[in-house]
């Protein structure tokens, strides 16, 4: 499974309050929720983000609360993949459960610049910065996790498996 898009660069320890402030957690409509993604961290993010863009961050991305609204808001905003030096553990689980692939690569996180064109191959874990002509490797995403991402997250994935059995 391959993903290609433009990179948005963020720093380290981006917390879930930065990704989606708690005052919006009463919103149940994912579209409405996504309009507030990163609004204080980067006000221009939601205006300029395009479907398929990637997010590149430093260490401990998604620290803080367990709100699944955080990966959900980023997914609905159009983010196709997140590359970070490391992830906070609850966000890591929530990200995959929401159908966003997460790759850990301190080297890629360091080198990729804002606006670079990036291509990712989930099967091999290869990350290419097409703008700079550099390559990096993260741990590959196993095939069943790629299926989960293709289906849009754990819930649609389970529903599909169930209907297949029937």
């Amino acid at each position, binding site marked *: 499974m391959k993903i290609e898009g433009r990179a948005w660069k963020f720093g380290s320890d981006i917390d879930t309050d930065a990704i989606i402030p708690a005052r919006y*957690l009463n919103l149940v409509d994912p579209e409405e929720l996504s309009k507030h993604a990163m609004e204080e961290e980067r006000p221009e993010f939601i205006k300029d983000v395009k479907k398929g863009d990637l997010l590149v961050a430093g260490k*401990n991305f998604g620290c803080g609360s*367990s*709100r699944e609204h955080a990966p959900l808001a980023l997914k609905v905003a159009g983010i196709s993949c997140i590359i970070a030096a*490391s992830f906070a553990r*609850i966000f890591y689980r929530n990200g995959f*459960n929401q159908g966003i692939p997460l790759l850990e690569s301190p080297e890629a996180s360091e080198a990729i610049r804002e606006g670079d064109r990036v291509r990712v191959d989930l099967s091999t874990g290869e990350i290419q910065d097409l703008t700079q002509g550099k390559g990096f490797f993260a741990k590959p995403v196993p095939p069943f996790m790629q299926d989960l991402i293709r289906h849009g997250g754990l819930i649609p994935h389970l529903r599909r498996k169930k209907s297949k059995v029937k």
Partner: protein
Amino acid sequence: MKKTSPMTITEKILASHAGKKRVAPGDLVDAKIDFALGNDITAPLAIQAFKEIGARRVFHRDRVALVPDHFTPAKDILSAGNCKLLRDFAREQHVTHFFEIGEVGIEHTLLPEQGLVLPGDVVIGADSHTCTYGALGAFATGVGSTDLAAVMATGRLWFKVPGSLKLIYHGKINPWVSGKDFILFTIGDIGVDGALYQAMEFCGDAIQRLPMASRFTMANMAIEAGGKNGIFEPDDMTLEFVKTRAKRPYRIYRSDPEAHYSEVREYDASKIFPQVSLPHIPSNAKDVRDIGRTEIDQVVIGSCTNGHLEDLRVAAKILKGKKVAPSVRLIIIPATPEIYRSALREGLFEIFLAARAVISTPTCGPCLGGYMGILAEGERAVSTTNRNFRGRMGHAKSEIYLAGPAVAAASAVKGWICHPEEVVKRR
């Protein structure tokens, strides 16, 4: 008899719930869940997911708690809708532990108080501070709404067994120091990802002297160091806390003396003084005496971290016969109705009201910028909560200083951040 490999308390609890003799860090296990919880923020998404996967019944009606504590009593129409969703689902599923206004308290103080989470349990909650129950000697960790849906449907969840970080505290505990100061100091030492994916096991003679309230506070903030769980071995104090509350049998686990730890750190408790974590990250911890004069606009005493009766008693000791500085607003939030009533009976409210504090019904409210004390642009708060992320309690240009109840109450009186001894004589 063949000697089995030594394990930590975390490994033992996970092994027994996965039906295995032993597990090691990195193993993936499918474990039975003893108790699961969701709140008015996270349960709506979980209920939706539960229905989408076609689940019919929750795995056990007595082992699921739905706790509308974040934006309650409902702060607006959307929040009221979310509470209604929880209420309707609880009725439809005959969920025993749905807490209505008047019974509801902050989930992580309420569930141990009600004896619903117990030593030796595996507990998951769709709230990051679920790690609080580790104070009882349980394995407890926060998950997202999708994982909660899976548990509500099946009663099981997969885990990667975490490595364990052993944190030992020796020696005398200084005056006005509580578990909050220990944990802020520790996070200041290891950083906000210092325990990433790991179990934080707290022990040592100083820990054995810490009351349960302080242990809950420390386990609560394991997540602020990136930890998967925080845990304490049960002792007499734990059993004393649990014995009158437990609604079902429980099991005590202890780490083997030869258990393997990824790292061991030792702290001299006598060198830990009241701490403050400066904006905008919990690891920014400093000795309160090392902070220059920092004037404040608001103080919050409450939350799942420090809304215990013991915390309110400490605040009352400092506030007794004093007035909050005219430039400061003091908001006190007992974590549960039981704590509220005890504080009232002990006369603490009289002290708080005379000091010009406001007392709120139990709610998470201001901790996450929900309501009941939002900060304006440029305002500064001292708060006994657990996160000082930018904008967490209100405007993106407001500031949060994390502290224990003693520093918080003393600062409310002074009008700037100070050591409790600047307000009251040495105990």
